[in-house]
């Protein structure tokens, strides 16, 4: 094992795949000469040249469509959004072109493409730069959606995403790029659609994904001090969702809390709650609880940011609720 940053894990994944397959290229704003807005693609221009590491103008709709067209014609693009906030001006090409092309063409035109970039809040960035559209993309058939939470998962999943013949949305976080973690030496892949039990526990299941899982770890540490054993499941992929791992855990703990950064309505937490009540109703000893962002746009002032986001305190309260300890 070696210890590297999240951004380095992403870079290793892209670099290894680009060495392996000439058809893979990286396109986006500031990915080449600037070495990446968040330094994810640092050094890649030097290795692969301007043909395969391509700076674009600020034109997300245009370069997303160009990526999809290139994928229809045999290439395997990685399209970087500086953040997924900006993907909304390109969402027509993601939903109406990328996700439906295989189906509309009766199987003739697959779109092997990865759209990657940062999602969610990242400090006091104001309402327009703090969106979590994870569940929006997960709602759409034809896409796969991956939201990793540590460097090792990020690398193995990004490599799988690049090799996948279907379009993959790959969501990162500005607040994870600097995170360090152990990553296996040598080549490895992690399959899309398989959750990972990050901590084994027996009293309550906490399901989460992406960077907000860091708040879950803090909560689990605090709960452990009170002899409450939390099992933490990292979904890693939110389309498809590994329901089996969640169900199995709930059958063991009989209690479930879902923690997610997105807004509550039509969220991944609602989906998990539906699925578990449908398939493990008799195993539940308490109503399922969820911790999402508050149902408001995120403001700028620090006093308005912190209480609007999921945090360890809220997770602890939800866990104590399902354990009838509050």
């Amino acid at each position, binding site marked *: 094992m070696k210890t590297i940053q999240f951004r380095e894990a992403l870079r290793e994944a892209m670099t290894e795949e680009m060495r392996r397959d000439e058809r893979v290229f990286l396109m986006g704003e500031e990915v080449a000469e600037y070495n990446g807005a968040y330094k994810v693609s640092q050094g890649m221009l030097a290795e692969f040249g301007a043909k395969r590491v391509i700076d674009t*103008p600020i*034109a997300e709709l245009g370069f997303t*469509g160009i990526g999809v067209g290139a994928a229809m014609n045999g290439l395997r693009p990685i399209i970087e959004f500086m953040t997924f906030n900006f993907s909304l001006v390109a969402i027509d*090409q993601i939903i*109406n072109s990328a996700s439906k092309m295989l189906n509309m063409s009766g*199987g*003739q035109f697959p779109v092997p493409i990865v759209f990657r970039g940062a999602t969610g809040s990242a400090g006091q960035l104001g309402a327009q730069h703090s969106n979590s559209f994870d569940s929006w993309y997960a709602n759409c058939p034809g896409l796969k959606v991956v939201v990793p939470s540590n460097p090792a998962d990020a690398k193995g999943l990004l490599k799988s995403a690049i090799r996948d013949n279907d379009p993959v949305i790959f969501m990162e976080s500005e607040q994870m790029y600097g995170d360090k973690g152990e990553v296996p030496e040598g080549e490895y892949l992690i399959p899309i659609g398989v959750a990972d039990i990050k901590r084994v526990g027996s009293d309550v299941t906490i399901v989460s994904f992406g960077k907000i899982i860091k708040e879950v770890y803090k909560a689990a540490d605090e709960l452990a001090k009170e002899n409450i054993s939390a099992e933490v499941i990292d979904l890693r992929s939110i389309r498809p969702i590994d329901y089996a791992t969640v169900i199995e855990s709930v059958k063991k703990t009989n209690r479930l809390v879902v923690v997610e950064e997105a807004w509550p309505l039509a969220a991944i937490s609602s989906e998990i709650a539906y699925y578990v009540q449908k398939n493990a109703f008799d195993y539940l000893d308490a109503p399922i609880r969820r911790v999402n962002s508050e149902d408001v746009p995120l403001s700028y002032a620090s006093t308005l940011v912190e209480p609007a986001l999921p945090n360890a305190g809220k997770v602890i309260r939800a866990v104590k609720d399902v354990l009838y300890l509050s």
Partner: protein
Amino acid sequence: MPTVTPKKSIGTKFPKETYLWWYEQMLLMRRFEERAGQLYIQQKIRGFCHLYIGQEAVAAGAETALKKTDRVITAYRDHAHPIVRGMHPKFVMAELFGKATGCSKGKGGSMHMFSKEFNFFGGHGIVGGQIPLGAGIAFADKYNGNDSVTLCLMGDGAVRQGALHEAFNMAMTWKLPVIYIIENNNYAMGTSVERTSNVHDLYKLGAAYDMPSFQVDGMRCETVHEAVSSAAERARKGNGPTLLEVKTYRYRGHSMSDPGTYRSKDEVEQYKKLDPIEQVLEAMKQNKWIDDKGVETMESKVKMLVEESVKFAEESPFPDVSEIYHDVYTQTDYPYIKD
């Protein structure tokens, strides 16, 4: 450059075989679409249905200027393009019927014809969405060092979309081998070009990106062929995209549900005098390349082809219900949520 007004053809610049091919292809498109219109009224064809009648010279003239290895992509008025690329019309008709034998297996319908075999990258239903896709298809050919060019067609309505400007800018910056054709039939559904912008000569939009841009008489195969041919040569030499505003006209409504109250009958009649099929026929008659009997033979050949297509579509099966879960992902064991 001067504004082009469609006019009647004079003389013949191309060999007999080319004229005969244009005539046959355009007649096939015309009769096919007339039949599709009837079948729509009979509710054999459902959904939206946009007919190509009047615009045939654009597809026919462009095709003779392209290689089979070149790519074509267009919007939702897309029945004619796969046919002119070489597909048997029965596969388009079957698609219109929603049958499993259709060129998109009955999953696309009128607006989403596709053919990988004939390098037809589809009919696309979101106005202007195909403009960046066309640039992307061309990007891949340039990346791979192929000499294929991409012909990307759009209507006059699409030029007001932002996608056009972003795609034009990158296509020019990166010198992508793409030819953009605006099939300017003067109406974005019911809204005339004049009502959508102060810029009525649509080729001028290319100037903002230094894109070589021309206006072309779209009621004549000759002029379309010549313009596409020069554009393809420019693209193959690595000199990048071209914009062609092709002035054409649709005789029918925007779609089958359009009564056409936004334009006068007289305007439609004036354009019918410039009918692209009649112009090609006249040129051939002047050269004595075809006589009345030849015309009759051609008409009956095309009619038989259309009827064969209808019969094929009628007799083909609808997609099996199991097809619902096919072609959504390439992954064959994708775990769909079913409850």
